[in-house]
C-alpha cells in the first residue's frame, strides 16, 4: 500500500533524533491518536542576514507514514530560509513521497504542522511580527490539538 519512497524513508529516516540546544521546538499530535511529532530547529542568519534552518531533527511516535513524512519534511526544510520553509505544504510532502494512501494523508499534515509550530515558536520567542495568515495557521493547529485532547 505504501510507495517505495515511503518505505525508504521509513526504513532509513533522515535527520532523526533529538538536538542539543535547539533554537526552537515544535510538537504536534496526540498520544491517544497514536501520532506525535517533535521537530527541533537550529536557526541562524545566512550571509544576507536572513534567518535560515541550519539544522533540523525530528522525533516521531507513529505509523510508517508518520515517520516517512517527518523524515521528508526535514529534507525539504533543511537549508531553507524561514520564509521559504513557511511555504512548504502537505502536498509537497505527499509529492516528495510519491503519494500516500488516502487514510494516511493526515500524517503529512501533521509533519507540516510541526514545522509551522517550530517556526511560530521561534517568532514568538524573538518578538517578531507574525503575519495574520501565519497566526491563523497556528490557531488552526492548536484548536485541532485541544479538540483531540479531551
Amino acid at each position, binding site marked *: 500500500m505504501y510507495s517505495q519512497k515511503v518505505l525508504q524513508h521509513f526504513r532509513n529516516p533522515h535527520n532523526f533524533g533529538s538536538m542539543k540546544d535547539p533554537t526552537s521546538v515544535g510538537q504536534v499530535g496526540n*498520544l491517544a491518536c*497514536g501520532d506525535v511529532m517533535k521537530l527541533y530547529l537550529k536557526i541562524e542568519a545566512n550571509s544576507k542576514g536572513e534567518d535560515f534552518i541550519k539544522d533540523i531533527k525530528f*522525533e516521531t*511516535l507513529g505509523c510508517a507514514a508518520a515517520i516517512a513524512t517527518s523524515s521528508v519534511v526535514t529534507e525539504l526544510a533543511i537549508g531553507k530560509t524561514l520564509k521559504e520553509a513557511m511555504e512548504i505544504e502537505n502536498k509537497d510532502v505527499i509529492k516528495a513521497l510519491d503519494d500516500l494512501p488516502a487514510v494516511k494523508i493526515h500524517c503529512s499534515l501533521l509533519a507540516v504542522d510541526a514545522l509551522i509550530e517550530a517556526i511560530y515558536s521561534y517568532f514568538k520567542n524573538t518578538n517578531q511580527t507574525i503575519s495574520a495568515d501565519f497566526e491563523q495557521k497556528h490557531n488552526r493547529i492548536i484548536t485541532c490539538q485541544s479538540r483531540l485532547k479531551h
Partner: protein
Amino acid sequence: MYISTKSRYGLRALSNLISQDCCSVKKIAQKEHISSDYLEKIFASLKKAGILKVVRGANGGYILNRQPKEITLKEVVEALEKPEFSCPSFCSCHSKSIWQKIQTGFNQVLQSLTLNDLTNQEEKSVYLDYAASTPLDPQVLKEMLPYFEFDYSGNTMSLHSFGSKSSQAVEVSRQTFANILNCKNSEIIFTGSATESNNMVLKGIAWTNQKKGKHIIISSIEHDCVMESAKWLEKHGFEITRLSVDKYALVNLEELKKAIRPDTILVSVIHGNNEVGTIQDIEAIGKICKNRDVYFHTDASQSFGKVPIDVQKMNIDLLTASSHKIYGPKGVACLYIKNGTKIEPLLHGGGHEFGLRSSTVNTPLIVGFAKAASLCQQEMVKETKRLTQLRDYLIKNILTSIPDSFLNGHPDKRLANNINISFARVEGESLLLELDFYHIAASTGSACSSNSLEPSHVLLATGLKPEQSHGSLRFSLGRFTTKPEVDYLLKVLPQVINKFRQISPFKA
C-alpha cells in the same frame, strides 16, 4: 584424511557461531549435548588454525575469525583430523592410485563447501498470524481434490446419482461436526463464513423472537461481525447491552445475571477472543442463560478445534465455527443450531440446509472443513501442549528481554496459540512493517493499521489507554510454527522495538 566424530561435533558447534556474535563454550556445549572439555579442545584446534578467535570479558567466548562463506570445510576438517589418508607416501600397493583419486575428489568436495552451507540459505519467512487465517493443511487439500471432479459435480438437491453422491459427502461431513460437538446431524448447517453465521444468529434470532422482546446482550469484546450486526439491530429498534470485561478480558457473570431481563432474547459471548486470546467460562454463561430461558450463542471461530467443546454439557444453543482458522479452506463455516430454536434464515431460496441457508451447497469446501476439523480433534491434546509451551516461552522471553512491555489478556485462561503484548512508546503499524522486512508476519491493535483509525475495541475494553493499544502486537502460533521460528522472532523483536523507541519523542 578421514572425518571422525571430532569434525562432526566441530561443525555442529560452529553452526552456532554463524548467526551469533559471540558465544561461550559452555552455552554451545549445553545446547549440542557435547562435553565442555571436549568442545574446548575442538575450539582450541580451530583457533590455532585461524578459524576462531577468543573474545575476552564477561560475555566472552569464541567468535568466527572470518566470514562464514570464507571458511571452507577443508580447513575445518584439516584442523581437527589427522592428516593421513590410508596409503602413506612410501606405499606402492596396487590400489594406491584409487585412494589418491578418492583423496583428490574428497578434497575438492570439502574445498567447495563453506560454513555458509551449514545454514539454510533460503530466506526465513516466519508466519505468526494464524489467528488471522491459517494455511491449508496438505492433507485437507488432498481430501478435497476428488470433490472438484465430474463425479461430485452434481447439485446436492438433485435426485440423480451425481446429486446424491455430493449430498452423501456433505452428510458424512455433517456427521463429523455432530460427533465433535456432541449434537445431532440436523443441528449443523454449513454457511459461507463465520461472519455469515454470526450475522444469521443475531439478525435471525432478533427477527423471529421480537414478540418476546427486543433486548440482546453481547460482550464488549466480540468480533466486528457481531459488534456491527448488533449496531445494525440497534438502528432498527432493538436494545443492545454490551457487557464489560475485566483487565483480563473476562466477562463478569454477576453482571450478566443482572443484565438479563424478561424481554432478553439472546446472549452472545465470544468463546476464545481473537485479539487477546482470553477463553470465557462458556459453560457457566450457558447455565445462566438456560436457567433464565434465553438463547445463548457463542462465536467459537478461534477456539473450535483448539479447545474441547460439548454443546450439551456447555448449555450452548447456537455456536459458530470457522474453517480457515483450523487449516481448512476459506469460504466455509458452520453454525450449530439446537433443535427447536426459533430462527429466521438470512438467505431464502431453494431450501438447502434444512431450509435455514439456501444456496447451492459447496461440497469440496465442506469436505475440506470436515477433514480439517477431524485432524484438529485428533491432534488437540498433543498440539495444545506443544503450543502452550511455545506460547509461554515466547511470552516469558519477550517480557524479560524488552523493558516496558506487558501482556494483554489472561495469563492462562488463554488460547494456546495467542500472544498479545503492548510495548510502551512505540506504534504497532510501524512495528508490523519493520517485522515484515525481516519476513515475520504478525498483527496489531493499533488504530493506524485499521481503516477506521480507531484503536482496538477489545484492548480498550480491557482498560488499556489508546496509546497502549497503539503499541500492541499479536503473535499467533499454529501447526507449522517451530521453536527456531520463535527464537528468530525473539532475536529480531528487541532490535525492532529499540529502533522505534530511539525515533520516539518519549523516553523511558
